[in-house]
């Protein structure tokens, strides 16, 4: 790390062990991880993705970036050389390893790594970061726990099964189309250790004995339900495709999906809605209502030809609490190549006009393709709003996924209910007649007429 040396580092209060020599037993990769990586991040869009330890604008040679990409899915098994007289106090429980698939999407995770690697371990060793399992494709996992360069190889642990090692950090940072995605790429631990056992078995006899000492995967004897279904709202988002445009949506009734106008802009247009869980389904529908371009509320309503089965219908919230834990579910980043991603944060602001919430802001990571997806209260599971956009600075072109805007469900619910019950679009048409103060909010302007225009 090229960090400036700061004032002399002082210990965190826990004396570190002196570094111990170790030997490299083998380098290994998980073939399934590499295959899923190639599917998700390769192909035509490969050039859009960057996983380097530096921001896309930083100077990193092509060779260096190529080396980092080649090594991304590789891990190393080391043996620490025993020290003198330390063995007695070096006992400790072996790491418990979660089987692949035991942790559901949306489940809480804790990443533990040392930012900047060996730089200043007194300060940085074993720094913790919390998030959830945002998405998965086989052993390729994504979390929204914030990780930094140097945490590659760090462990990611589950709250349930308690303290189980779920994965190792493969790439702490990634960018798509020069935008920081805010997700950390992980490789599941269980298949990695399976690969290690197989590899050790093919080396010399001494190495074979080591294979038996690798921690086994947790099994039924631990007495924990291994197939936690996860929070029901983690499956609530649907993919909405309208011609060449796609985005997210949420089913508010078995045949009614809410999405954004910029995903499904024209009324009567045919739309394809896909759900991924509990089973993959494709259902055609048509746009029955889309707000006008002049409306600050970027909303469209799709009526489906058939019922969407198996998707839990969300309970709309009636109140919003700034600071409460929230979750966004959407098809951002990967679209239909992967199921919906789950990202978490807090409700950072509730903007009101005349004491009525008209805009919600969150700290969840929201990416292109998440528009129209649901925003939930993590605690109650209630539907808080519909994601409309994240933030872009038009002067610099920078996008900020962790500042995003949602339309409060309280704005939509009466009209949706009326339409559901009577087929009357009158309530939805009212969204085109939002007052000027609401329009000002969604234009990110100050309410005063003489205020400067926002750059955003």
């Amino acid at each position, binding site marked *: 790390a090229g960090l400036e040396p700061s004032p002399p580092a*002082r210990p965190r209060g826990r004396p570190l062990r002196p570094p*111990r020599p170790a030997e490299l037993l083998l380098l*290994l990769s998980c073939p399934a991880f590499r295959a899923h990586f190639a599917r998700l991040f390769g192909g035509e869009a490969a050039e859009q993705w960057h996983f380097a330890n530096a921001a896309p604008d930083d100077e990193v040679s092509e060779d260096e970036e190529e080396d980092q990409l080649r090594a991304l899915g590789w891990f190393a098994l*080391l043996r620490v050389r025993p020290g003198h007289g330390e063995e007695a*106090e070096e006992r400790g*429980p*072996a790491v418990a390893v979660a089987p692949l698939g035991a942790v559901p999407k949306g489940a809480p995770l804790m990443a533990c790594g040392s930012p900047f690697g060996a730089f200043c371990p007194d300060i940085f060793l074993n720094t913790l970061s919390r998030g959830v399992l945002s998405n998965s494709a086989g052993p390729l996992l994504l979390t929204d726990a914030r990780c930094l360069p140097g945490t590659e190889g760090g462990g990611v642990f589950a709250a*349930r099964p308690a303290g189980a090692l779920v994965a190792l950090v493969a790439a702490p940072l990634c960018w798509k189309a020069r935008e920081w995605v805010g997700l950390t790429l992980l490789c599941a631990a269980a298949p990695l250790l399976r690969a290690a056992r197989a590899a050790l078995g093919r080396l010399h006899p001494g190495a074979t004995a080591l294979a038996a000492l690798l921690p086994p995967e947790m099994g039924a004897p631990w007495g924990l339900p291994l197939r936690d279904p996860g929070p029901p709202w983690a499956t609530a988002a649907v993919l909405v495709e309208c011609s060449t445009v796609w985005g997210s949506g949420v089913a508010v009734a078995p045949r009614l999906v809410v999405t954004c106008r910029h995903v499904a802009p024209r009324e009567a247009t045919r739309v394809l809605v896909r759900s991924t869980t509990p089973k993959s389904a494709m259902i055609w529908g048509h746009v029955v209502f889309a707000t006008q371009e002049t409306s600050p509320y970027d909303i469209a309503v799709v009526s489906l030809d058939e019922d969407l089965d198996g998707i839990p219908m969300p309970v709309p919230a009636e109140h919003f609490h700034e600071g409460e834990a929230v979750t966004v579910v959407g098809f951002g980043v990967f679209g239909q190549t992967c199921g919906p991603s789950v990202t978490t944060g807090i409700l950072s602001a509730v903007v009101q006009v005349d004491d009525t919430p008209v805009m919600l802001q969150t700290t969840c990571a929201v990416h292109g393709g998440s528009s129209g997806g649901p925003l939930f209260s993590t605690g109650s599971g209630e539907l808080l709003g519909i994601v409309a956009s994240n933030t872009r600075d038009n002067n610099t072109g920078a996008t900020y996924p962790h500042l995003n805007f949602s339309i409060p469900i309280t704005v939509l619910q009466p009209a949706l209910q009326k339409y559901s019950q009577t087929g009357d679009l009158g309530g939805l048409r009212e969204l085109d007649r939002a007052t000027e103060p609401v329009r000002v909010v969604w234009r990110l302007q100050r309410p005063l007429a003489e205020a400067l225009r926002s750059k955003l």
Partner: protein
Amino acid sequence: MGRQWGPAMRAAEQAGCVVSAFRAGQPEAGSWSCSGVILSRRPGLVLCHGGIFTPFLRAGSGALTAAGAAFLPGDSCGDDLRLHVQWGPTAASPAGRAERGRTGLCTPHC
């Protein structure tokens, strides 16, 4: 931090480590480092990221993308590779117990 995180925090604290790779006799050439997980303590087995070994591969980084290569033995790296692993006190160690509850944290000025 909520109660649900207690086991995860303990597991992370016990298993987390940092791994450094450098060339024997060439400390001035710098070192490469990453995080790791202690899988077992006797014998000490550690899993870490493979990226820090790229500069030491005899056949260069291309060895990592060779067709079908799922693993490379330790001697794929040059003889001058030296490794250090560092970790904090474990909950099981006397040092770890002695330090529990001590308020020695600091926040260096930016």
